[in-house]
């Protein structure tokens, strides 16, 4: 019997496992903070990328629409936040207004991308979405003239941090004798958003709409014959996925305080897609594992490769960045060979593999 099966059969064990994980997650930022605040920041970025991967999983994993420009929605969310809460236009709206606006803006862009591409499938859809991602980034880069909206390549700085009344997420604060630094506060907020998003994803998967997405992935003609309005349902997938990206983007802008078009390049889209594929397309838990792995391993390498080489050879032979890409490529190849359905495939895909 699988681990999850055993846990389901024993509610007490299940709840203690949940409690254990909850305690670990609550304690995590303080443990990480002892190694340096950097690691809390890295964790926060990892959670952001997990949000992105979960959003993309709706489009790619559930509905089977290959989207190579997903990072554009992240960018739209980030710029929406930055423009509405920075000295750029001297607007300083509170975050609970801007985050939904960012999600909505991304959602609109999702529909804008989805509408003209509805008839495309597979490779062709991938090419158009790739182009879309680049178009959005180039707009960010050039919308400084004739009217300065995005401030071009310089990006937007001094973005307001998230603030609830007098409680600012960017300041250090001592609560109950514990030092809550900015990143630690953001960690809890992100964790909360992540839990909500996981719940949303799980619920969507087992719903009428979720089944319609999967039906379209499996056989579009049959799905139509069953009365599914594929146009509408595909647009819903794009819109939902994009909203996830928009929320993550807003959080990113608030946390960093500075954004520029460079954060939304094609490589980032590829990265998020790799997270989805590596973890196991369609399986929410697999996607989370993929996102965390691809966020943390490069950071670990960055911090180990340099000292290890210096200790072994006395000098730096290979740049950490080079090793990172080498390992990344190797990992992808090994995955294709040995775990083509991902590290933690959805049950369906695992069953498929078991037969082969």
């Amino acid at each position, binding site marked *: 019997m699988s681990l999850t099966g055993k846990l389901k059969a024993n509610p007490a064990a299940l709840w203690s496992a949940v409690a254990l994980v909850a305690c670990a997650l609550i304690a995590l930022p303080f443990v990480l903070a002892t190694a340096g605040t950097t690691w809390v920041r890295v964790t926060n970025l990892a959670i952001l990328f997990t949000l992105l991967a979960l959003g993309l999983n709706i489009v790619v994993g559930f509905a089977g629409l290959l989207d190579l420009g997903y990072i554009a929605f992240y960018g739209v969310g980030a710029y929406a936040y930055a423009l509405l809460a920075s000295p750029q236009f001297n607007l300083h709206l509170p975050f609970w207004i801007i985050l939904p606006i960012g999600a909505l803006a991304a959602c609109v862009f999702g529909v804008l991308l989805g509408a003209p591409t509805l008839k495309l499938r597979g490779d062709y859809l991938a090419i158009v979405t790739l182009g879309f991602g680049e178009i959005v980034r180039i707009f960010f880069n050039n919308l400084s003239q004739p009217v300065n909206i995005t401030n071009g390549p310089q990006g937007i700085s001094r973005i307001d941090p998230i603030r609830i009344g007098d409680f600012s997420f960017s300041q250090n604060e001592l609560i109950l004798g514990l030092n809550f630094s900015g990143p630690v506060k953001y960690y809890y907020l992100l964790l909360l958003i992540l839990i909500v998003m996981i719940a949303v994803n799980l619920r969507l998967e087992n*719903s*009428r709409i979720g089944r319609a997405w*999967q039906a379209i992935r499996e*056989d579009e003609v049959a799905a139509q014959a*069953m*009365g*599914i309005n594929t146009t509408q349902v595909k647009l819903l997938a794009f819109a939902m996925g994009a909203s996830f990206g928009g929320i993550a983007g807003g959080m990113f802008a608030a946390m960093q305080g500075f954004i520029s078009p460079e954060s939304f390049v094609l490589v980032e889209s590829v990265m998020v897609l790799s997270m989805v594929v590596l973890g196991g397309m369609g399986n929410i838990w697999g996607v989370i594992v993929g996102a965390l792995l691809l966020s943390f391993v490069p950071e670990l390498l960055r911090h180990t490769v340099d000292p290890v080489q210096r200790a072994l050879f006395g000098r730096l032979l290979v740049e950490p960045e080079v090793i990172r890409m080498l390992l990344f490529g190797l990992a992808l190849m090994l995955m294709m060979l040995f775990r083509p359905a991902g590290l933690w495939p959805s049950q369906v895909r695992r069953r498929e593999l078991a037969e082969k």
Partner: protein
Amino acid sequence: MSWLLSVNHLRKRFGGVEALCDVTLSIEQGEIYGLIGPNGAGKTSFFNVLTGVYRADGGNIEFDGKPLDAAAPHRVAAAGIARTFQNIRLFGNMSALENVMVGRHVRTRAGIFGAILRNAATRNEEAAIHARARALLDYVGLAGRGDQLARNLPYGDQRRLEIARALATEPRLLALDEPAAGMNATETATLRTLLERIRNDGTTILLIEHDMNLVMGLCDRLAVLDYGRKIAEGTPAAVRENAAVIEAYLGGALA
């Protein structure tokens, strides 16, 4: 006479090939209507035009007294015509039960917000979808197979699952494209019982089939297509004696 479906002067052309040429036929409420003809006669083209997969080049279709909007397959399903496919098109990587649950899509309403909030209305609807899907699996004789992946089911079961999925849309007219293809005698006999039962429960059936025993024994009336034209229509006995039909099937020299 009140027809459930009446098709008038339907035309469909693919380049130089006339797949359907002035086809006119009507199906009565509650009958099993057969559509036969040699390979390439236009039977499947007829299905595809009827269900909105292809757009007709001429003619009109009236369903249940109203003009059928055959421009979009999902609207045809909503109007009450469900179909199966000649080459089985199940959702292979979904379970048998989920396949039938997808069929309930067109008769249910829950949207994104219902799915996320999972309010009482959505929970009730979901439970009803579940119950109905299980009942339909049972109905076609697939009880206990619900958790299996559709693609892993034996061939005959896949055919019956397709019927269950189509029935889940609550059709007035069930259009079956060669449901007995590739079945052995026992499976065909079971299928025949199932089709009779479906008819007796009030669903009209349009049947494309090559198995002449099945067609002749089951259908109330049938039409014969040849090169896109309807060459005969009537009871199985009458069609069997029709000279044009014999010629189409056996060739002019023998007739």
